[in-house]
Each structure stands twice: as C-alpha cells, then as structure tokens.
C-alpha cells in the first residue's frame, strides 16, 4: 500500500460521516426549501414576506445589541480581572464562566425567576412602589438572557488577549503624556481589536441561533429560530421552515466570514 493510499483510507471515515450527516441533510434542506408551493421564491420570502422580514430584523438587532453590550461589559471586566490580583479572583472568574454549562432553557428559567410574574424584581418593586415590574417576557428579558450566556464566551477571549498585551506599550504612551483614557483609546483598544472581532462574531452567531432561552421566555416576541420552530411543528410548513433555516445559516455564516476577514486584516496590521 502506498503512503498516499494509506492517507486516503484514514480519511475515509471522515468523508463518510461528513457526507452522511452534514452534506446530505444540507442538500435535502435546500431541496425541501425549493420544493414547496412557492418554489425557489421561498428563499426570498424571508425578505419579501413582511412578517418574516420583521422577525429577521428583530433577530439581527437583538443579536447585534447583545454583541455590543457583551463586548463592552466583558472588556471592562476582562481588563480588570487580568490586571488585578485580589482574594476571590479565581472564584469570580469561575462564576463568570459558569453560564457556559447551562442550556438555554435554564438561562430562560433564571430570567423568569428574576423578572417574571413571580420574580424577584417584581416582588421588590411591588413592595417599594406598589407597581410590579415584569420584563422577562419582553425583548429586554430575552436580551438579558442572551447577555448572560454571551459574556462568558467573550470574557475568556478578552482576558487571553489582555494577557498577551505588552505592558510597555501603555507605559510608553503614559510617558509621552497620555491620560488613562487616551491610553485606552489609542493603545489598548486598538491592540484588542482582533480579539473583539473574533469573540464578537461568536457571540453574534450564538445569539442569532439561540433557541432554548427564546422558547422558554417567548410570549410576545418572535425571533428567527422560534419562527422556524412554529412554521415546522405547528404549521407543518416544511418548505418555508427549510428556507428560513438556510437564510438564518447564510446570514450568520456571512457575518462570521466578514469578521474573520476583518480580524485577519487587523492581525496582519498589528504584526
């Protein structure tokens, strides 16, 4: 057996698995999407149909807001945690990354416990102002849930990037007269750019596709994964749900690809 053949034989299981469980279902999904009463135009429905379009916009806005808020919070926390040593630091980091272990349903449950009809915030506001504040089932509850599981993913990446940052750069900037704000603006944030793009892209894609939290909370909000679920299970509209799935995948993939090319450029520029 030649060396070349040996490598091909080793790769065979991977090829079979990829074909059977990834390529075939994808092809089938594509075919189902085009096989409904609308034909190929099902793929455009995500944009042309007002209800679907509104849901798409909802989802993208929510995912973008989650990503931005997560980056802001995780950067401040990551910088602090990486630069300071204090008692309980290790425990705090472990706690911050704990939500990684929770499925979306549990995150949704936590939001309901916090801000639902029987929730903590509701009980406190009812006692203090006489009016019960409930936002678990609104877009803000969903946003909070997404934030909860996005922060750990981003904070770890940011902390790793901060650790690699040459402290000499900040000292050099300060010696040249830069205030603490100017140092952050001109030196630290540009140096963390690639980490922001990479971890932000992951947060965005996760938020776009998150289902468990939305399913647990969703009473009056529609996001794409929920729409796909209802079209598929309740309306039995296979073609549309397949087309929507492809649309969701393509949009998330495009954003990731864009981020990767941007971060590639930024990494090259940063040397």
């Amino acid at each position, binding site marked *: 057996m030649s060396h070349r053949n040996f490598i091909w034989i080793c790769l065979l299981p991977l090829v079979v698995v990829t074909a059977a469980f990834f390529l075939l279902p994808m092809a089938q999904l594509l075919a189902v999407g085009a096989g409904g009463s609308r034909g190929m135009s099902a793929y455009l429905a995500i944009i042309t149909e007002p209800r679907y379009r509104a849901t798409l916009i909802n989802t993208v806005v929510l995912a973008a807001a989650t990503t931005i808020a997560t980056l802001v919070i995780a950067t401040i926390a990551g910088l602090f945690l990486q630069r300071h040593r204090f008692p309980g630091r290790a425990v705090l980091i472990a706690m911050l990354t704990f939500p990684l272990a929770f499925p979306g349903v549990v995150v949704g449950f936590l939001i309901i416990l916090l801000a639902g009809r029987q929730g903590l915030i509701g009980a406190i506001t009812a006692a203090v102002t006489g009016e019960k504040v409930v936002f678990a089932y609104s877009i803000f509850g969903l946003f909070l849930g997404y934030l909860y599981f996005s922060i750990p993913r981003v904070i770890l990446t940011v902390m790793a990037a901060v650790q690699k940052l040459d402290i000499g750069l900040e000292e050099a900037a300060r*010696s040249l007269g830069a205030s603490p704000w100017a140092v952050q603006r001109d030196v630290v944030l540009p140096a963390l750019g690639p980490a922001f793009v990479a971890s932000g892209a992951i947060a965005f894609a996760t938020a776009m596709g998150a289902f468990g939290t939305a399913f647990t909370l969703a009473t009056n909000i529609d996001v794409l994964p929920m729409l796909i679920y209802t079209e598929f299970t309740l309306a039995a509209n296979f073609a549309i749900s397949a087309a929507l799935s492809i649309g969701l995948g393509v949009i998330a993939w495009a954003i990731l690809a864009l981020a990767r090319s941007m971060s590639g450029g930024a990494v090259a*520029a*940063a040397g």
Partner: protein
Amino acid sequence: MSGIAGHGAAVHIENCGKTFPDGTQALAPASLDIVSGETLVLLGPSGCGKTTMLRIIAGLEKPDAGGRVLFDKTDMTAVPIEQRHVGMVFQSYALFPNMTVAENIGYGLKIRGVDKAARAARVAEMVALTNIGGLENRRIDQLSGGQRQRVALARAVAVRPRVLLLDEPLTALDASLRDRLRSELNSLLRSLGITAIYVTHDQAEAMELGDRIVVMRKGAIAQIGTPREIYFAPQNRFVAEFVGAANIVEGPVSDGRLTLPGGWLALDDAVDNAAAVAMIRPETIGVVAEADAFLRGTVESVAFIGDRERLVVTGAANKPLTVDAPNTINVRAGERVGLSVTPQAVRVLPKED
C-alpha cells in the same frame, strides 16, 4: 543646547527604596544626584535594582515612604508619569503597532495638542536626527530591530523631555549592530546635551556612554564614579570583577609589600601590616625576563586574541593570573617568566566580611 532637545533637568533622588507587597526589597533606600545634561549609567547584573531605580525616576513605581524624587528642585514624587515630562526608551521598543513610524514619533506631540504643521516639522527633525529618512509611512512590523530602536528614540526625544530614560535599549540587538548604535547614541546624547539615565548590564556600554556610572548590586549602590574611577579604582571586589577583567590576589602585607607565592608586589596605598586583598588589571602586568622581576611564574597557556596575547600565569599568586601582553610577545606555554607590576596598578580593596 536647548534648541533641539529642550532643557535637561537636574535630578535629585533622596532615600528612594522599593519594597514590593510580598516583602522583597528590590531597592534599599538610596540617594543620587544627576547633573543637568549628564548621562548617568545604572550598571549591574539582573535583579540589582537598576530598573526599579529607573522606574521610580520615571514615575512608574512609587518609592517607599520617605523617598523623594526632584526635578530641578521641584518635588515630583506624587506627580504621575504622564505629567513628569520624561522620555522613555524600552528594551522591547514598545512602539505602537497600530500607528506608522511618523505617527509613533508624533504621538507625544499630538497628545500635548501641538498643531499638525508644527508636529510634522518636529517629526521631520527627529527623522533626520535618527537617520530613518524614508521610513515615515512604514508600519512598525515592516522595520528591522535597529530601525525600531531609532524610532523609539526619536519618539522619546520628540517631546523635548526634561529627562531621557533608557532601559537596556540595545540589549535586544545583535552584537555588531549594538556596537554601531552605541556610538551613534553616544554622539546623539552629547549633541543634545540632554539629561539621560541609562540602564544596562553591559559594562562596555556603560563605559562608552556614561559621564558617570552607578554600579549596583543586590538592590544597593556599590560605587558611583566616572568610568575611569570605576575601572581603575574600584571600591570593592564586586565592582572590580564586574567591570572589566580583574586578577584578585591576596596575601600578607609587611612594610608596603604584598607577599605572594611567586614573590612580592610593591604597594602604593598605605596598608597596615596584615592580610590584604588587591586587584590588578590584566593589561597592567608586564612580562619581563625572570631575573628582572620580583614576581615570577610559569606560563600555563597563551591565547592569541588579535589585538593582544592573553597569558595565564601560574605559581605567581594563589590563583592563576591573567596577563594581557602585546601581540608581538614571544613566549610559549611552560616557560618561566617574570612579571612587572607598578605599585599604582595594584589596587588594595577594603576588607569584606
């Protein structure tokens, strides 16, 4: 002198020590005076406290209670680095990767609100001064190590600092480039007339660049002096051995003579009749005929180094002596030789525990 560099401050350091939170003392309380326009070198092995001293002067470290740093008689101890108006050059260069060469050099001026035209003029002046013409629009990752160091120097000098602080700026470069940049840096510092404090572990760098050298050891100052004083009149064994090559000999002293296994040495310094330790530089020992000398030994090895012959002579002192002889000398290993040493070349060192 104030044209291109601005006025160099006189720096006064008073009782500055540094103890880290874990209790280790990086620097014992020390005092230093640096004259305006002087280049002072802090020299010592790693962990001797030289970088800590520099960082205290820069304002990157706070001295322990009781320590004070003054620039031109103004107390700067509580002033943060960004308001001290110093220039810093780091071993790692610490150039901003997201800016071009020109933006790096102009950064301090931009932060200070200097307008664009004045900034461009000053950047051009610095580019000419440090010989990096043509690189202005390059990114930092497109520069060689030597070019990066020039940019770092230009950036630090551009703001007309009161004190220029250099932390092992040449250590990361290869040997031949280091020698060239060292002499360039030397003429630059002389022409600028700037007050400069230069940290290094390389004694050749310290000798060439320093108006004065502060030799440091284990968080304390071992000796302060001009390069000549440090080399010819070391005050202790550490300085003698750290700066240049040194033969350390010891033996009993009587009537101004130090007795060694191979004879004796006449002493210039007044020494009590007791055991003494002395230092002799290898190039101050002359090789003569055995009959003409009061100190004799056997040549163990001869190494041709180019500009001189390095001999190792045994039997003369308690330990083999290193002798740097002219490269025209004709001796072979195994030969008996006489050694001539003038009394001035024998430096008696103070007793140490």
